[in-house]
């Protein structure tokens, strides 16, 4: 006897085990036992079948699609934000004649970030080998297009500045290297300014409610987060006596604390994923590590002795770095939750925080 020939190329076993198969059984069982259903999309007073109502939309099925991005994108937001801010800080430090070592380290952060960023972005493309398709056009109305060109400009200039610095460190300074270093640094400053916060525009101008509701805040929020991370990285690398870095770190921490208040204080249903459920918890952890914790540590370091102050600032630095990364993860997570919520795009007001 030969094997029966499947009539379609479908993994029947997988289909039978699927979540939806079980769900249908659950619905039938519940209808049989209780004579009524109370799950989302059902009408308790009606038949034991789910019904579509103005309260439940189309059986509570999400209208919007979830972001298709994987782990590379929140990591890219973090790396890009920190690298962009480091590029700006490094250039300004150089122009104002600050400690050479600080300038050098800021350049390295920008350069390393400018290598990792495109790699992460390309890795997330559905067709990574087609990255260059994005360089066919420049579309001002597409934040993704503007962002890619900004990334390209920042990466090239930051890498050039760091490369020139590396060569002049190793083989001694020369005029061409100096020109390359200064030109790269100037361009790194110019591109770093938008690069440090454009990712806020990128997710702000989308159809995902929690993101577009925050469109006016996200770039500021992400910019402060990136600055906090860049300052944190420099402090972790040893620059714990720089008053300028302390001031910038305090500024970023104060801004992030205020952002936390904004999120916690808003009653708008679109921002619910930032306050409730798993995405809410991640948002709170990220917010605490970016705002109040480094703020308190930095304030304490102002009054502490020399050594204690340094270790407090190192802790503040690590906290801001972790907070920046977790904040980006939290916003992407909240975007997923928001896209799954069928009520927002259908303007359904009745908001219970039960179904998550």
């Amino acid at each position, binding site marked *: 006897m030969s094997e029966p020939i499947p009539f379609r190329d479908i993994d029947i076993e997988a289909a039978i085990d699927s979540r*939806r198969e079980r769900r*249908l059984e659950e619905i039938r069982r519940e209808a049989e036992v209780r004579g009524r259903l109370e799950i989302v999309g059902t009408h308790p007073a009606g038949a034991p079948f789910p019904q579509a109502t*103005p309260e439940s939309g189309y059986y509570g*099925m999400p*209208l919007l*699609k979830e972001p298709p991005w994987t782990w590379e994108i929140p990591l890219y937001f973090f790396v890009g934000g920190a690298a962009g801010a480091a590029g700006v800080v490094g250039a300004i430090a150089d122009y104002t004649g600050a400690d050479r070592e600080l300038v050098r380290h800021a350049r390295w952060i920008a350069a390393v970030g400018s290598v990792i960023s495109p790699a992460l972005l390309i890795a997330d493309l559905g067709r990574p080998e087609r990255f260059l398709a994005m360089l066919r056009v420049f579309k001002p109305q597409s934040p993704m297009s503007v962002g890619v060109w900004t990334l390209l400009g920042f990466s090239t200039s930051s890498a050039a500045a760091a490369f020139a610095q590396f060569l002049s460190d190793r083989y001694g300074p020369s005029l061409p290297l100096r020109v390359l270093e200064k030109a790269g640094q100037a361009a790194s400053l110019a591109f770093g300014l938008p690069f440090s916060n454009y990712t806020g525009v990128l997710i702000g101008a989308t159809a995902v409610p929690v993101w577009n509701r925050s*469109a006016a805040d996200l*770039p500021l929020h992400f910019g402060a987060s990136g600055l906090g991370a860049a300052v944190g990285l420099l402090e972790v690398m040893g620059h714990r006596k720089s008053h300028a870095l302390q001031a*910038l770190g305090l500024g970023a921490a104060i801004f992030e604390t205020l952002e936390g208040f904004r999120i916690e204080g808003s009653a708008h249903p679109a921002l619910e994923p930032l306050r409730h459920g798993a995405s809410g918890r991640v948002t709170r952890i990220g917010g605490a590590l970016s705002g109040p914790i480094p703020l308190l540590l930095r304030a304490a370091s102002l009054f502490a002795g020399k050594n204690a102050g340094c270790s407090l600032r190192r802790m503040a630095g690590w906290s801001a770095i972790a907070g920046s990364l977790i904040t980006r993860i939290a916003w992407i997570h909240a975007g997923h939750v928001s896209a799954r919520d069928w009520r927002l795009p*259908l303007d359904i007001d009745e908001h219970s925080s039960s179904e998550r």
Partner: protein
Amino acid sequence: MSVTAFLTDSTLCIGCKACEVACKEWNGISDDGLDWSGYSYDNTGAVGASTWRHVKFVERPPIPGFGGNAAEQFSWTFSSDVCKHCENAGCLEACPTGSIVRTEFGGVFIQPDVCNGCGFCVVSCPFGVVERNQKDGRAFKCTFCYDRQKAGLQPACAKACPTESIKFGKIDDLRQKAQERVEELQRRGMNDAQLYDPVETSVGATHAIFIVRGDPRTYNLPPNPEVPTVYLKKAWTSSAVAAGLLLGGALLAFLTDRGRSNGRSR
């Protein structure tokens, strides 16, 4: 060559899914697997990368005087969903490769040989139509049968529809037809019949309009779809302010720090 559109009339749809099948056949789209949703006869859920036409089965509490249903029975309507082909299309504006274009027929078309799968169109569609194909990596949606229209044919779904629930034609003609049909339905007692045609919203108008019964939200049709470009001004203003603050803050911090000791701690 004219600007064309779909008019999908849910009062004529019998839920046969011929449009779904015809679409898959013509465009060579893979199946969606065997899955039970528990929601009426809709085991597909929504339009997506492998479903460009999708028949919704809208079971609702009884509507008095509804068709041939008994009074105590739930009412049952079907409606074939599709990409709306917006006038101000979020996906088209968002696409960083220029892969998504407006065709001469007014439709929104993703050129599959240009798409690099960045996924930004997916989060930019206010109707949740575009989806990335997990195996292929690129974004897919209804092509408005661009190839068939080029050849002077009507889209496969409209051609296959046995009840002419899916009508295809010039957009102005269809708008007028839709208006007449709604008036006719209301004369016949279907007072809840209405046209879903989001002209007044920021998506401008769509090249797919729908005749529905009752609240369009039960068909998962958003009452106020917004093209995400409306958020650009706010967001870029915020970005410019953030850049200004960063530049000013850094200058201030380092200038006031000048002359003070700022060496490394080690």
